[in-house]
Structures are given as C-alpha cells and as structure tokens.
C-alpha cells in the first residue's frame, strides 16, 4: 500500500506542538509521575519527527532512529519509575518541589 503524500511541515508542526505541550507539562506539573508522562510525550514527539523525516525521503533511517528512541524511552521509564517508588518511600510525597536537597 502506498503511503500518503502530505506536506512535511504539517507533520513537523504537529510534532512541535506535541513537544511543546510535553514541555509545558514538564514545567507546570509538580507530581513526578506526570513529569515522566510529559517526558514520554516529548520523546514521542521527537520520534514522530524522525519518522516523518524518514517518510520524506522514503528511507528506513527514520524508523531506525525511532526504534532507538523507543529503547531510550523504555530504559528511561524503567529507571524513572523505580525512582518514583523511591521518592514516595523517602519523602512520602511525589512533589518534586519538596525533593530539593540538591539545592546549592
């Protein structure tokens, strides 16, 4: 089945919109769980941009980078969620503004 021909900038704009939405979520939410979700959104947006770029040339490279992003996301989430559990245990809260012991 042949792919669809759409203007690349539309896809890219969608990717950018998803990315900044994730970024806004990252900046606004205090719950570490939602921050991790925002990160997922941002990673996914980047993946969309890569796949779109791959489709622009009809080459597989975009999808390969997508797969690499997928592995990064998987590793990040597994470690990140482990951290969420630790944060909950130590601070009895998921509020990242409370967990600021690294302040200078």
């Amino acid at each position, binding site marked *: *089945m*042949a*792919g*669809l*021909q*759409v*203007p*690349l*900038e*539309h*896809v890219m*704009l*969608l990717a*950018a*919109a*998803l*990315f*900044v*939405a*994730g*970024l*806004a*979520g990252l*900046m*606004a*939410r205090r*719950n570490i*769980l*939602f921050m*991790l*979700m*925002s990160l997922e*959104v941002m990673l*996914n947006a980047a*993946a*969309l941009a890569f*796949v*779109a770029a*791959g*489709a*622009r040339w*009809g*080459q*597989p*490279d975009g*999808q*390969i980078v*997508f797969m690499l992003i997928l*592995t*990064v996301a998987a*590793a*990040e989430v*597994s*470690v990140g*969620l*482990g*951290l969420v*559990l*630790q944060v909950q*245990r130590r601070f009895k809260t998921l509020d990242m503004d409370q967990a600021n012991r690294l302040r200078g």
Partner: protein
Amino acid sequence: MQYPGQSQMMETLFYGAGAIALAATLLALTRTNAAHALIYLIVSLLAVAVLFFLMGAPFAAALEIVIYAGAIMVLFVFVIMMLNLGEAGDTRERQWLQPRTWILPGILAAALLAQLALALWQTPASTSGLEVSPREVGRTLFGPYVLAVEIASMLLLAGLVGAYHLGRRYIDRDSGGEQ
C-alpha cells in the same frame, strides 16, 4: 490499487488522527487523576501510530502500539497501582494545578512553538508517499546500524539493572523479605 476518493479519505484520516493525538495529549497533561491521564496518553499514542501507518511506516506503527502503548504504559499502570494514591492524590493535584501555574510554562511553550513554526515554514517539502517495509528496516538496522543496536542493548541492560536495583530495595522494605 487506488479507488477514487481513497486519497481524500486518507488525508481526512491523517488530519483527524493528528487532531486526536494533540487533543488527547493536552487532556492527558492536564488531568488530576493519573489513571485518566494514562488512558488519554494511550489514545494519543495510538493516534500517532495511525499517523505512522499513513506515512508509510507500518513497522514503526506496530512498534508504537506494541511497545509504547503496550509495554511502557503498562509499566506506568503498575506503578500507579503500587503507589495507590486514590482520592487524596486527586485533591492534592487539584491544589497544585492552579491556572496560574500554567502561565509561565504556557508563554514559554507558545513562544517556542512560534519559533519552530517559523523555522518550518521556511523550508516547505512533502512526504514521499513511499512505503518502507519492515524487511527494509531490518536490513538497514542490522547492516549499517548494527553498532547502534549494540549500544541500545547496553542501554537496555543498564535500565534493567537500574530498575532492579531501585525497585528491589523498595520491595525489601515494604514487603519484609517475601521474595
């Protein structure tokens, strides 16, 4: 093998999926209940999978559904279940999510989007419409990109070890040596 109007329909599908992805993402990020947010996020990911498929990347679309929407989101579900936040969590989230907390992030995000849009509009282009088959992806992946595969495997191993380390201590303390 195209029938008339097919292209029209697919284009509609494409923009519809895009709209759904954006809307579901926005909803996911503004929820107070983590489980609800997760459902919206899964919807968003599925919509993106549709976009992949329509752009001629069926393998990527499949991975998006299987790994992203399937495996990774399930991890989130597990953690939400373990944390067991309940109603108290909702209330607290509502306190934290005052409209004014969105002001600065909103402004920054909007400015960034405007910049990106400006940059994108300077170089118009179109997707090729060619389909890249899983076979082609596999050949490239284990051909020129084999080193990247190795690195990805190392990364996953590191993630595995890290997650095990972090999670084990949690289990040790809370369930008193059940393992």
